[in-house]
């Protein structure tokens, strides 16, 4: 890392306080640690929220339990990540999760989409988990022991999320009705999936997805982080409603 690169990374102002940002090496580049953690935490929180929208209405009871459990895991990961980010940024996990404006979230647009249709849900779940595995592997190799340790810990749960996603993908691919519906969903979500990862990690996602689907994926422009889908604002309204209605400092 050159001194100018480090300076540039440290300048990125994130979170309410933006105090003395710490810079770590990620994919050989300097990254503001707080910003990197917020990207991950926001992805996990918003995806956890979206997945939890199936609670009570999933295709059958066992799937309802499993998918709700996965949603809870994601929110648990978000909490752990927000706690690390809060230590970087001199704030609290709750403030980071609930007190920012919707446009301040750093999640990938893939997780913001509201698609209460099972093929799309499974396609998004699988694309996200596949991308996340690639990202977690890179994070586990980070020079920051706390971030690397948390990534390794998350991966132990994410492995089961991937098993769940892949069993569904294989099942949908094997059926005459499932295959075209999944294909349509993956094609729709593909530019969003590419947007989850940094440039350096995208080729790995492409090869994973192509190997599983047995076809070439189109080279499309990724939907970048920082842009937001309209439905994020609706989700944010609902997600922060209780927090906003309670006087500051309320005890639960």
């Amino acid at each position, binding site marked *: 890392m050159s001194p100018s690169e480090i300076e540039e990374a440290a300048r990125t102002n994130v979170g309410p306080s933006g105090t003395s940002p710490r810079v770590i090496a990620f994919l050989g580049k300097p990254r503001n640690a707080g910003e990197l953690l917020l990207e991950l935490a926001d992805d996990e929180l918003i995806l956890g929220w979206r997945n939890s929208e199936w609670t009570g209405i999933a295709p*059958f*009871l*066992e*799937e309802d*339990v*499993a998918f709700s*459990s996965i949603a809870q895991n994601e929110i648990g990961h978000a909490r752990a990540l927000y706690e690390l980010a809060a230590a970087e940024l001199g704030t609290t996990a709750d403030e980071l999760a609930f007190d920012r404006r919707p446009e301040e979230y750093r999640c990938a647009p893939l997780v913001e989409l509201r698609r209460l249709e099972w093929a799309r849900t499974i396609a998004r779940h699988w694309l996200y988990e596949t991308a996340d595995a690639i990202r977690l592997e890179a994070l586990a190799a980070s020079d920051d022991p706390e971030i690397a340790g948390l990534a390794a810990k998350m991966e132990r749960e994410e492995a*089961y999320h991937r*098993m*769940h996603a892949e*069993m569904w993908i294989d*099942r949908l691919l094997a059926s005459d009705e499932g295959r075209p519906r999944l294909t349509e969903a993956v094609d729709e979500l593909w530019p969003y999936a590419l947007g989850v990862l940094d440039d350096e990690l995208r080729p790995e996602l492409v090869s994973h997805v192509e190997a599983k689907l047995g076809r070439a994926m189109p080279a499309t422009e990724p939907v970048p982080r920082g842009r937001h889908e309209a439905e994020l604002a609706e989700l944010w309204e609902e997600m922060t409603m209780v927090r906003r209605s309670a006087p500051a400092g309320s005890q639960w």
Partner: protein
Amino acid sequence: MTPRVFEVFRRERHGQPFQHAGSLVAPDQRFAEIYAREQYGRRQESDALWLVPREDIHEIVEFPDEFDLKYRRVDGYSIKARLKQARERSGSPPRGEPLGLEETPEAGP
């Protein structure tokens, strides 16, 4: 989906017997494993699970006993009445009354 029923047995700790935990419905064994993990293993309540397709369980429910062969049972007769008689013969106090023996406290762990 062609649903199949799987019976789930769980073991709390190594060395303990597996006990029936419940059942679940899944299209195949791969789905059943994920669902069993989520329903019976996600709170660290089990250290191992057995997953058995219900159709692989051979159930036996009929045990005819036309000639009242209860003398074959190990609990054939009650020892209680005989014990009472023996006590009366020896003149020792009936059950419930102190025998005059000091209870030895168990050694601590």
